[in-house]
């Protein structure tokens, strides 16, 4: 009787040692079952279920990473080929992000799908920062949003400032005609003195640089070139064709907008795929680590239950013989 009591006490002593590992994954498994001595033990079934679901998640995120990598390869080629498109315009007109105009329109380019890291939040933060930069008496700033993710974020606090919202850009493969039609829509519906395009430029698979491109309306270009400053030598250019300089400048501004938009949309799509690749990669790595920890817990639990059984058998046997 006394010996049974000592063995029981020893058993109770052993249990806490086995199951006292400070495992964070255990905290979610609290379905305490009362064992034979009133001690707690975690069922192996629960750990096994959790391991199965984590393994599935790991497989899914790995597959998403592969898909993003292949999509990135395809679109990266096109984005790099389109990089020459905006350079002639910047070479001619220069770049003046600090130009002071009354009506600014911020075109924010973002993705439709999620799980792509922080690039959409970065674009929205930059757009909001620019909005604050350009707020002042009798100055107007409006948004044109491309993509669901930026729309969701901007609608929350700047709903009345959004002029146009365009989603499902990537339903059909991106091409210049589609972007030209889009640019036409925007130019028809929105009055602007300066258009600012906010997007993530694709530098490499792990680095995306938020970029702001400025396109000035023809009136502002005229004004700046006459007053000197950055566009001062625009006047020295002869104009060929068309009846008036204003008409040519108008066509130039529209063409510039569609070209810069095309490049911006392609670069943003590249950045989206790259960001998704790295997000899914870190996610599958985390899942792998979680799986390792769960495996350890599982083995510990299994061994603990085996030990408990052995103790019971031995104490039962010794109670009979002793």
């Amino acid at each position, binding site marked *: 009787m006394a010996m049974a009591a000592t063995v029981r006490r020893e058993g109770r002593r052993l249990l806490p040692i086995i199951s006292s590992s400070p495992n964070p994954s255990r905290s979610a498994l609290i379905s305490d079952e009362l064992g034979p001595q009133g001690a707690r033990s975690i069922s192996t079934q629960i750990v096994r279920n959790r391991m199965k679901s984590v393994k599935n998640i790991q497989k899914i995120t790995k597959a998403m990473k592969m898909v993003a990598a292949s999509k990135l390869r395809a679109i990266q080629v096109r984005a790099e080929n389109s990089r020459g498109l905006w*350079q*002639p315009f*910047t070479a001619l007109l220069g*770049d003046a992000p*600090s130009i002071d105009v009354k009506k600014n329109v911020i075109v924010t380019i973002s993705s439709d799908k999620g799980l792509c890291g922080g690039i959409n939040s970065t674009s929205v933060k930059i757009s909001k920062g620019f909005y604050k930069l350009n707020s002042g008496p009798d100055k107007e700033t409006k948004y044109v949003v491309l993509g669901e993710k930026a729309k969701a974020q901007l609608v929350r606090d700047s709903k009345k400032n959004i002029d146009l919202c365009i989603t499902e850009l990537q339903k059909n493969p991106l091409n*210049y005609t589609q972007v030209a039609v889009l640019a036409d829509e925007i130019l028809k519906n929105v009055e602007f003195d300066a258009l600012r395009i906010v997007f993530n430029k694709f530098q490499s698979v792990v680095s995306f640089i938020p970029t702001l*491109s400025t396109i000035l309306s023809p009136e502002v270009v005229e004004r700046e070139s006459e007053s000197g400053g950055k566009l001062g*030598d625009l006047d*020295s250019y002869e104009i060929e064709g068309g009846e008036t300089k204003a008409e040519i400048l108008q066509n*130039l501004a529209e063409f510039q907008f569609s070209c810069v938009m095309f490049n911006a949309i392609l670069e943003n799509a590249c950045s989206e795929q790259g960001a998704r690749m790295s997000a899914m990669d870190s996610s599958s790595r985390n899942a792998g680590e979680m799986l390792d920890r769960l495996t350890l817990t599982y083995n510990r639990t299994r061994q603990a239950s085996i030990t408990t059984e052995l103790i019971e058998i031995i104490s039962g046997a010794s109670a009979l013989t002793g």
Partner: protein
Amino acid sequence: MFRNAPRLLSRAIGYSSSISRGRAMSDLPAAPTVDSAFVEAWKKVTPNIEPPKTPLSFMKPRPPTPSSIPSKITVNFVLPYQSELSTKEVDMVIIPATTGQMGVLPGHVATIAELKPGILSVHEGSEVTKYFISSGFAFIHANSFADIVAVEAVPVDHIDPSLVQKGLAEFTQKLSSASTDLEKAEAQIGVDVHSALNYAITG
């Protein structure tokens, strides 16, 4: 004056990109690649976030206007999906401006030309490459750099004459039966492009 400007700017502001500092040390009289006024204004409003980059920082700067006329003109011919020619040195380019075919030689006066559908020919020594371009723009800079931006371009030998004839007939017929202004304009554009294509193959 311009040579000192980047040096002064990079001294005046704490935030100076290494590019503009490096520029000040080398001898290029070009504008700094970071617009300092913008960066300053940004820092005042949103100090926590880095200011976004602007296209100027991603572009190679263009050389300044040389004092004597160079022997070759440098051509950049870009399309939305490809850079057909990039910084290629050639003798002459003939571009289809809206006022007619325009020849561009080194030392040409700075021009902005709107292009109509037609043939662009690039002359390099004795070889001539001809492309048929749909419209676009051509910028000729004072430093003998020519930028030609077009929406579509095909080498002339890729054009199928039978399809051109068919298209021409179709659009002429559409033009005669067009009712609204928009339809008329569209049909007219089709006729223009196809007759230019026709001229390109035959001429």
